[in-house]
């Protein structure tokens, strides 16, 4: 963004400098900090195009991945990001570990910190767990998702992808569709997009879209077709079967009919509509294969960009304070 203008301000003359120790949520970050992460990620994208996809920025440092909740792609993305920065990684997952023996999260983290790690990446079921660790530990902490609260790196990569594809964030109209109530991706996206000046509408059945969410500065709609004509971006959230009993909506078929993205609906949208999805996709439920694999979709670019965002996050927090 504004490459020409910003490159003319030399770093020694009061340009923005990152000093934050942790990235635990977008709520804590200023718009300027969010843009700084995006700009830094821009530089890291180039590294992934080299034949030797590695820079020595974090050589000799250790990144500990603490996954108190299962994750495959976010963990792999962080692991690969760390390795492209030449850091070593150690993995802790709560299954079959000391957690099963009754150790608290803080004790686990303190033990791992005592081994001499440089960055902690944490995913936890409990909202606020990364924030608590960030306060209690000297080691920088990056959140890889805390329950239904926030998933900062996912929102950052979403915003990064939008900026890459549409050239800006300010003034864009973004729709987030699906289970807003339980979605940390939705929350972080709303916070980040609002800070950068986008208009956000959240859409879904009333059982999955609490009216209190309007307090975050977004519009609420229960009718997808009403907003299709005006939006620049649609972010389709996954329906998380595993979290539901059967009482959130009558049937998957009905959900799909009312809130699924398909060719007829995309035809009602702007031509250059951007279709996003944080994955994993339930094909035929919230999005049809035709659209997920179609020309408007940037779902796989989101994954690619996730790597650059996580490299930027690891790099910034590990250099921010010494």
């Amino acid at each position, binding site marked *: 963004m504004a490459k020409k203008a910003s490159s003319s301000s030399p770093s020694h003359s009061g340009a923005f400098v990152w*000093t934050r120790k942790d990235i635990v949520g977008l709520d804590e970050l200023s718009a300027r900090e969010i843009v700084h992460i995006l700009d830094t990620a821009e530089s890291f994208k180039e590294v992934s195009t080299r034949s030797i996809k590695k*820079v020595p920025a974090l050589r000799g440092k250790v990144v500990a991945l603490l996954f108190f909740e299962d994750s495959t792609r976010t963990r792999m993305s962080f692991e690969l990001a760390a390795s492209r920065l030449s850091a070593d990684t150690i993995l802790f997952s709560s299954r079959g570990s000391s957690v099963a023996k009754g150790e608290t999260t803080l004790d686990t983290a303190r033990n791992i910190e005592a081994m001499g790690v440089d960055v902690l990446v944490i995913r936890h079921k409990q909202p606020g767990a990364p924030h608590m660790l960030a306060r209690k530990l000297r080691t920088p902490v990056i959140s890889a998702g805390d329950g239904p609260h926030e998933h900062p790196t996912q929102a950052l990569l979403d915003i990064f992808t939008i900026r890459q594809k549409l050239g800006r964030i300010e003034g864009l109209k973004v729709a987030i569709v699906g289970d807003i109530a339980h979605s940390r991706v939705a929350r972080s996206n709303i916070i980040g997009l609002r800070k950068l000046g986008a208009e956000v509408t959240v859409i879904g059945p009333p059982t999955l879209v609490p009216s209190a969410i309007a307090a975050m500065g977004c519009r609420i709609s229960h009718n997808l077709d009403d907003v299709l004509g005006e939006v620049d971006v649609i972010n389709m959230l996954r329906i998380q079967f595993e979290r539901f009993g059967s009482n959130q909506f009558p049937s998957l078929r009905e959900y799909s009919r009312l809130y699924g993205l398909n060719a007829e609906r995309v035809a009602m949208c702007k031509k250059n509509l951007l279709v996003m999805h944080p994955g994993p996709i339930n094909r035929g439920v919230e999005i049809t294969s035709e659209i997920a694999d179609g020309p408007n979709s940037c779902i796989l670019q989101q994954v690619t960009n996730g790597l650059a965002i996580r490299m930027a996050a690891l790099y910034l927090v590990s250099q921010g304070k010494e």
Partner: protein
Amino acid sequence: MKRILTAKQVTSAMGTLYRSVVAQLPDDSTLAVIGIRTRGKTLADRIVRRLREDHPALHIEFGVLDITFYRDDLSRRRGVPLVRATEIDFNLDDTWTLLVDDVMETGRSIRAALDALHDFGRPKVIRLAVLIDRGGREVPISADFVGKTIKAPQGKRIQVRLKEKDGEEGVFIIPKP
């Protein structure tokens, strides 16, 4: 801030640098001119423009290197300024590579730049051109082409200002931040 070279003297130093590079140009291999951000890029750009005019038959590639990730003092600095991308979108293998920077002091930036270049390929030859050599080496690296050598007091910073970036030409002594 004290001026030590005028715009005219910068032009003259630039001329000296250019002529010494031209005197040693290869006849057969591709020439890759790579500027180290930020002012090295501007200088490299000037060299490439002039070479393309004077030697239209020469095959010249132009690249930009950001050495931030390769510095050995990364974790000694407070705060993180914005890192910019390296732009080398051609094959470095077997090229005659000219690395360009504005001021050479400790030699550590060049050490970092050589490391960075290795990740992009294996040039046949790497030569180093700097506009100002101010002395103060901390590693055994020296420049092949120098615009002007000056004796600068330790503890001061030499700043090159260029039209394209700073709106004026000149070399200044400023206190180290």
